[in-house]
């Protein structure tokens, strides 16, 4: 660039480019945003599950937003095992009390936090879950204990509508 002073024309160029860029962005955004979840997908935000038939030590899997949700009725042994773990031993420290409001019921997304596979029940080195894809082990509270996954299995928003019904979402 030369050292000449900016002229009227330079100002006009810059202003035109700026307006043009805003215009292009305004056109591109709808084309990008159309790929985000649409209204019908978002409408499926919650689901109610009848858990009256689940016995202690059993897990049911339900589909919520296209993802499996594990609902496990934990035995007393599993609860005490989950509560006895020291926070220092956890890769992603979370207390069992914070993950299971009612200690008998563990509700969480059945999605491995590594790359999204569905872990298997009652498998692995920590009596909880084991992901067959890349070998992550989860304990009886669904917390990551060993393997490549970085986080505990996610606990979704849920509530007991009554003693037998859980509303997820």
């Amino acid at each position, binding site marked *: 660039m030369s050292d000449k002073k900016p002229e009227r024309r330079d100002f006009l160029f810059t202003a035109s480019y700026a307006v043009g860029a805003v215009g292009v962005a305004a056109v591109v955004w709808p084309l990008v945003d159309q790929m985000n979840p649409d209204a019908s997908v978002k409408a499926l935000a919650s689901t109610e599950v009848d858990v009256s038939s689940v016995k202690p030590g059993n897990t049911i899997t339900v589909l919520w937003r296209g993802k499996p949700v594990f609902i496990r009725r934990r035995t007393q042994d599993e609860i005490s095992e989950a509560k006895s773990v020291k926070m220092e031993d956890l890769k992603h420290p979370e207390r069992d009390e914070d993950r299971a409001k009612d200690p008998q019921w563990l509700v969480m997304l059945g999605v491995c936090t590594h790359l*999204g596979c569905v872990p298997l029940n009652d498998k692995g080195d920590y009596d909880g879950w084991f992901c067959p*894809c890349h070998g992550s082990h989860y304990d009886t509270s669904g917390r990551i204990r060993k393997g490549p996954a970085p986080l505990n299995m996610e606990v979704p928003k849920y509530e007991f509508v009554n003693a037998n019904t859980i509303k997820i979402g």
Partner: protein
Amino acid sequence: MSDHEYVPSSKFGKWFNDRLPLLTLASHLTDYPTPKNLNYWWTFGGILTFCLITQIVTGLTLAMHYIAHADMAFESVEHIMRDVNYGWLIRYIHANGASMFFLAVYIHIFRSLFYGSYKSPREIIWIIGIIIYLLMMAAAFMGYVLPWGQMSFWGATVITNLFSAIPLVGEGIVTWLWGGYSVDNPTLTRFFTLHYLIPFLILGLVVLHIWALHVPGNNNPIGIDIKKPSKDTVPFHPYIVIKDGFALLMFMIVFAFFVFYSPNILGHADNYIEANPMVTPAHIVPEWYLLPFYAILRSVPDVPEWYLLPFYAILRSVPDKLLGVVAMLSAILILAALPWLDTSKIRSAVFRPLYKQFYWILVADVLILGYMGAMPAEGLYLLIARVATAYYFLHFLVILPVLGFKEKTIPVPLSITEPILGGSPNLAMAKKKESLDK
């Protein structure tokens, strides 16, 4: 364009060519001077063009019967296999064609690595090639999702989840890619759209790839600059056309063997089970041609094991899956820097005794990575995969740059004909030429 001016012989030809010089282009392509010593490793460019056209033609015809909807995709593929006239043939050609495409592209890439075809002045050809290769992987991955089998669904889940490794915006990007909260119908329809689009992008890049090739002309097995046209060249047509054609026929025999005798051997049986978001198959394996990179992804250990790295403090703040993803992407992108990482002035491995050995070690290393990618990520397999990953990066980042300075190369002949007509390679002449090249 050729040096001489092309004049069409017919009056109409001249009239047309004055308005749109297509005949000049055709004459350039047929007369294009080609090194006379090209061997069969140089026939894969033509073979790859054939593969691309095959995929586009079979893909177009499959799209006439396929239904891109989560509830109907799996069934429509079975419909193609059982009801559509020759549907089985078209689909088997398309599915095995993808494998053949990658087989050919790997040979093509390793040809370049051996003969130094990526070096100056052919860096742009090489980089366009890498972009084509990346697009091929994207197209192949999305194509694999379309039948909506178990491997389709879970392959799509695992691969799209790679983006969740990006700090802060990762999860948002994954949701955006999915168009929902999991891989589902919106994901399938957009993958179909992109799978349809990418081959045409590749076609455009292939034109640029060939255009960029025709500027300096082909590299050749002895990797020297040649005068063109000269005694060292032959016109593309008929010499190379016939040679490429013969190689293509040989290639088609292999292709046909897979299509007609073992059409499912390169696929995975689980993909004949319809997608089920509740159950992950016991062992997710990508298509064979992506296995080396899959092994690299899995061989990156937990963050606490990276204590030897100087940037441990920074690393600790990111989930380790990010490292796996970064390593995997770097393994491909490092190829783009290859023309500058390889410091040797000599192109062909024929005159580089040490590089030749490291070249074959690299070939073995990539094959080992591929094998480890197919094995469970545990124990000895994982250890070998980690060593192979480390060696892969060592080859490009350390061995190649150092080799260029340390290696004692063999004298390069002055021309292709010189070793035959002028006796053995003349050391003094080659040295003189080298200094002239600088």
